[in-house]
C-alpha cells in the first residue's frame, strides 16, 4: 500500500516533469519563432514562500490566474486587488459581489477536474478542512497555497503571505497596515470603555436547537475580548460547543448576539426572560460571515461588536 502510493507519487511527479518539459519545449519553440530578432523578455521572477502547512511553495510571477476554494480566501484576494485574476471560486464565495459572478469550482466538495481544466497559476486553500483537496491538487502539479490563520494577527499575516505569493507585496502591506491601524484604534477605544464600564458579559448564540455557542480558539472569542467584552463561554474547552442553558442563565449575559435567530425569538423564550440582556433589550443579530471568515471583514465585525458591547464608544 505504502510502496504503491509511493510509486504513484513518483509516477505522477515523473509524468508531470515530462509533460512540463514538453510544454516548455513547445513554448520555447513557438516563442522563439515569434520573437525572432526581438529582445528576449526578462525571465519570469520566481518567489518561494512557506505556507500554513510549512511547505515551501514556489510560484512563478506574475500570477495571472488564481482559483480560491474558500470564501475567506476570495475576500483576501479581492482586497489585494487580485479580483480580475481570480478565475474560479466556490458557491459559498458571496463577497464582494463581483465574486459571485466568477465560475464555480465547488460547494463543499471541490470539483478537481474543473480546477485542473482551468490550470490556474495558483490555488488558495484552507489548511485544516481541505487537506485532501490540497494533496490531490499538489500531486497533479498545481501550485496550492494553504492558509490557516487562527487569530486576528494571523489573518493579517496570511494576507501578507498571499501578497508575497502573488507579487502583490505592496498592496498587502498597505492593506495590513490600514487594517492594523483600525484594529489599534478600536483596541484603544475599547480599553477606554472597559476602564469606565468594565467588561460586559456577552453570549453568542450560534444555533438554538441544540444551543450552540463560540468557545475559546474562535475568532468570535478573540474579537469579543478585543472589543472589551467577556465571552461567557470562554471556558468551554471547545471551539463550537453545545452549551448548557442553565449556565447561560446563571452567568446572566448583559449582551446577547445571535447569528441565526432574531432578537424576538430569544425574547419569546420563557426561560430567558430574567436574563439581563433580554430585560434591557441588548440582543443583536449579526452577520456571521464578518465574525467567522478569516478575511479582511473581521475588522468590520470587530467594529460592530465594539458598538454593540460599548455603545457610543466609537464616536
Amino acid at each position: 500500500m505504502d510502496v504503491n502510493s509511493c510509486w504513484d507519487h513518483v509516477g505522477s511527479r515523473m509524468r508531470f516533469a515530462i509533460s512540463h518539459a514538453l510544454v516548455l519545449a513547445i513554448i520555447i519553440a513557438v516563442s522563439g519563432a515569434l520573437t525572432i530578432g526581438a529582445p528576449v523578455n526578462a525571465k519570469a521572477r520566481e518567489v518561494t514562500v512557506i505556507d500554513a502547512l510549512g511547505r515551501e511553495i514556489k510560484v512563478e510571477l506574475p500570477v495571472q490566474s488564481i482559483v480560491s476554494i474558500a470564501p475567506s480566501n476570495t475576500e483576501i484576494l479581492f482586497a489585494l486587488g487580485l479580483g480580475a485574476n481570480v478565475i474560479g471560486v466556490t458557491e459559498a464565495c458571496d463577497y464582494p459581489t463581483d465574486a459571485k459572478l466568477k465560475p464555480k469550482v465547488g460547494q463543499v466538495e471541490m470539483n478537481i477536474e474543473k480546477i485542473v481544466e482551468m490550470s490556474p497559476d495558483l490555488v488558495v486553500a484552507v489548511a485544516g478542512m481541505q487537506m485532501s483537496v490540497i494533496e490531490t491538487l499538489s500531486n497533479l502539479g498545481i501550485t496550492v497555497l494553504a492558509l490557516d490563520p487562527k487569530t486576528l494577527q494571523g489573518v493579517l499575516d496570511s494576507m501578507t503571505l498571499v501578497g508575497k505569493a502573488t507579487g502583490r507585496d505592496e498592496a498587502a502591506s498597505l492593506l495590513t497596515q490600514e487594517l492594523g491601524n483600525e484594529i489599534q484604534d478600536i483596541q484603544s477605544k475599547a480599553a477606554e470603555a472597559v476602564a469606565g464600564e468594565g467588561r460586559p458579559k456577552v453570549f453568542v448564540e450560534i444555533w438554538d436547537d441544540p444551543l450552540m455557542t463560540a468557545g475559546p480558539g474562535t475568532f468570535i472569542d478573540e474579537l469579543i475580548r478585543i472589543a472589551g467584552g467577556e465571552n461567557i463561554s470562554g471556558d468551554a474547552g471547545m471551539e463550537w460547543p453545545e452549551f448548557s442553558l442553565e449556565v447561560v442563565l446563571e452567568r446572566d449575559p448583559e449582551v446577547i448576539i445571535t447569528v441565526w435567530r432574531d432578537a424576538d425569538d430569544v425574547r419569546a423564550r420563557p426561560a430567558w426572560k430574567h436574563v439581563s440582556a433580554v430585560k434591557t433589550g441588548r440582543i443583536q443579530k449579526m452577520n456571521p460571515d464578518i465574525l467567522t471568515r478569516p478575511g479582511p471583514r473581521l475588522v468590520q465585525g470587530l467594529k460592530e461588536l465594539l458598538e454593540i458591547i460599548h455603545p457610543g464608544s466609537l464616536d
Partner: protein
Amino acid sequence: MKKRLVMLLLLLFAAMVIAAGVGAVTIPVAEVISILLGRIPYVSKWIPNMGIENAYATIILQVRLPRILLAVIIGSSLAGAGATLQGLFGNPLADPYIMGISSGAALGATIAISFKLPSVIPGLSSVPQAAFLASIATMTAVYFLAGASGRVSMDTFLLSGVVVSSFLWAVMSFLMMVSGDSLREIMMWLMGSLSNKGYAHVKMAAPYVGFGICVLIVMARDLNLLCLGDDEARNLGVDPLPAKRIIVFASSLVTAASVSVGGIIGFVGLIVPHTMRMVVGPDHRLLLPSSIIAGGIFLVLADTIARTLIAPCEIPVGVITALVGAPFFFYVLKRRKR
C-alpha cells in the same frame, strides 16, 4: 404484575427528582426541594419562602423541568413504539424509525432550516412543526404504498417503509448539499438533543404521545394474539388487518411526535424493549407498559449525564444512549444467561 409496574413508576419518579436536582449549575438540595414543593398547590403554604434567587427557580422550573418531561415523553414513545413494532414484525431489529418516520421528520426539519420557514406556533421554532407535518405525511405515504398491492402484509409495510425512507434521505441529502450554509445546523438537529427546549415543545408532543400510548396499551392483548399468526388471531376473535393498522398508526404517531421535538435519538427504541423483555417476559400487556416507563427512566438518566458530564458544555443525548445503552444491554444479556 401490578407490583412491578408500580415499582417502575416509583423509579421513574425518583429519576425525575434526581434529574431536577442535578445540573451544570449546582443548586443546594434544600432549595431544589423548596422550589419544587413550592409549586404544588396546598403544599406550598407549608414551605417557608427561603428568599430563593430568581435564577435558581428559573433554572429548575423553566430549564430542567420541561427538559425532564420531554425526556420522559420521548423515551416512553420510542421504547413503546420499539416494543410494539418488534412484536408486530416479529423482528428483533425493528425500531421506531424503521417505518421511515425519522427520515420524514429529518426532511421536514431540513426544509424548515434551509428555507428558513416562519413559525406558526409562538414560542416554538418552525423546525419541530415542519418535522411533525412531514413525518405524518411520510406515515401516510408508507401506509398507502403498502396498501397499494391490495392486501397489507407486514413485509410490505417494512419494505415500503424502507423504500420511502431511503428516498427521503436522498432528497434530504440533496437539499443539504445545495444549502451548504445550513449544513452544520441540520447535522446538529439530526444528532438529536433535548437542549434549549421549553414547555412549548412538551405541549406540542404530549397530546399525540398520550393518545398513542393509550392506544398501544389497549391493543396489547390483540398484539399478543397477532404474534401467534393471522389465522390464530382470527380464530380468537381479532380481525388482523384493522388491528395491525391501528397498532402501526399509534406507534407511528408517537414516534413522529417525539422525533419532531427531540431529533433522532437512537438506541432507546431498540435497547429498552429488549431489556424489558428479558426482565418481564414477552407478554405485551406487561411488556408494553413497562417498556414505556423504562424508556422514560432511561432517557431521563441519559440526558442528565449528557448535560452534566462535560459541563458547561453538553453532549448530544444520542451519544450517551448509545454509549451507556450498549454495554448495559450486554450486561443484562449476560446476567440473563447465567
